[in-house]
């Protein structure tokens, strides 16, 4: 039992990171129906921005996190403007292939600039641990979980309560009708990329702290898993991405703990296959019906 609880805590930490990345996938898909395969690399860049600011400029944790958010957010907006906007009314496959292209550009540019070797993250948070009954929780895990929860609540408030959030939802339902309300669709899409990419930036620094090492290709597998988390929760659904991320993180941790770490990736793909067979629109996906 105590091992189970312990693994739950580890799973929640990993799942929080997946959830933060999954949110970006799901929001972008919700608004422009694009699976932004470069999103995992934005997360990688978030880790690098925090690495650079802390190692070379002596930033502490929170300023480094803000820097990651800002840089990733702006980068997300620029990528959308340059790469995706011209393709907005093109076929979906064209935009998808472009996203994969952007992903390679980001990966290999980083490799060229920063080197392909693994970098070791500086210690940003105390490595203190707390023992609560049968389980041990590290300071880092508390940070990861608390920050994720805070950001999720903030994101929900933005989407549900602000004018820009309503505009995002309106554009995702009907772009032309939104235009008729006077909503600037381009600005709204940029804002969505800004939000999603800055969350990925946070995920980047958190994973750097958690695993202590980063490399230019680190975004590929977690990016894919976060994408699966988004599909699991119902792509386009923000709460779905949160639940999906946590679920995938816990499932992966449990398999490592009770099965074999060889299967840590396989279990995620198995979940994808099962969800596609059983409920293809995901846990909270909307099955779209229209009324006349």
């Amino acid at each position, binding site marked *: 039992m105590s091992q189970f609880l312990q693994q739950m805590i580890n799973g929640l930490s990993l799942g929080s990171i997946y959830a933060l990345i999954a949110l970006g996938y799901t929001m972008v898909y919700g608004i422009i129906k694009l699976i932004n395969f470069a999103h995992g690399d934005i997360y990688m860049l978030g880790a690098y921005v925090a690495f650079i600011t802390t190692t070379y400029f002596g930033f502490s944790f929170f300023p480094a996190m803000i820097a990651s958010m800002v840089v990733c957010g702006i980068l997300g907006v620029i990528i959308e403007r340059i790469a995706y906007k011209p393709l907005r009314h093109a076929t979906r496959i064209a935009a998808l292939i472009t996203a994969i292209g952007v992903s390679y550009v980001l990966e290999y540019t980083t490799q060229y600039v920063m080197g392909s070797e693994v970098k070791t993250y500086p210690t940003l948070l105390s490595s203190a641990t707390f023992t609560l009954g049968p389980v041990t929780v590290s300071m880092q895990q508390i940070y990861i979980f608390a920050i994720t929860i805070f950001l999720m609540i903030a994101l929900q408030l933005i989407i549900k309560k602000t004018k820009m959030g309503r505009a995002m939802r*309106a554009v995702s339902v009907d772009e032309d*009708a939104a235009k*008729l309300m*006077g*909503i600037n669709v381009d600005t709204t899409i940029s804002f969505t990329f800004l939000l999603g990419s800055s969350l990925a930036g946070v995920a980047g620094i958190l994973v750097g702290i958690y695993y202590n090492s980063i490399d230019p290709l680190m975004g590929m597998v977690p990016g894919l898993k976060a994408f699966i988390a988004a599909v699991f929760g119902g792509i386009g659904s923000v709460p779905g991405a949160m639940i999906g991320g946590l679920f995938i993180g816990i499932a992966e941790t449990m398999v490592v703990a009770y099965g074999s770490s060889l299967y840590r990736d396989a279990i995620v793909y198995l979940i994808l296959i099962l969800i596609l067979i059983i409920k293809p629109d995901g846990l909270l996906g*909307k099955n779209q019906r229209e009324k006349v």
Partner: protein
Amino acid sequence: MAMLEVKDLHVHYGVIEALKGIDLEVNEGEIVSLIGANGAGKTTMLQSISGIKKKTSGDIVFMGESIFKKNPKAIVMQGLTQVPEGRRIFTGLSVYENLLMGAFLRKDKKGIQEDLEKVYKQFPILKERVDQDASTLSGGEQQMLAMGRALMAKPKLLLLDEPSMGLAPILVKEIFSIIQEINQQGTTVLLVEQNAKMALSIAHRAYVMETGKVVLSGTGEELAASPDIQKAYLGG
């Protein structure tokens, strides 16, 4: 001077010319109906005026200013709002949120609140359903929501595209009497309809479109009495 003046408007979809030189005027305070069969170019016309559709040539002047090259946002800001064909309400947003979307460009919180009350008074059913997801509304309620949403922009000129589409006859009557009320409260209306009988009955003036051209125009009564119109659109 006319509130809205469309001059020699040409619009293409690819190589197909959908509007072949339209001239049309709407004066302040009027209800103007634009009738015609499917594919005549009525919806294209409204989308061109609202800035959703790219135009080839001609000019559109609203309140003395050309809006030919303006984007939808600037056009809404100037006081020209559209209720699109098929309602196009925002599903997943509540009725209240849909109404707020209509007031998206307005900053006067007090005015918005007042107009919300007005809309609730005009459409009491919306007040009852204020927190419901808009997708749960019936067709007629959705049409009312789409109209209420457009009114939240405080338009000087309201474009209505097929408000009667898919509605039961009793509801059609109700919607048309609401359009008249809105007009009497000071909003000018340009109405596109396939239901020619209803559209002519409330119109001060009307235009008849056929394959991208205006083929007839006159007062609502004149057109309703015209034998050609009776034969083609009013079922004898």
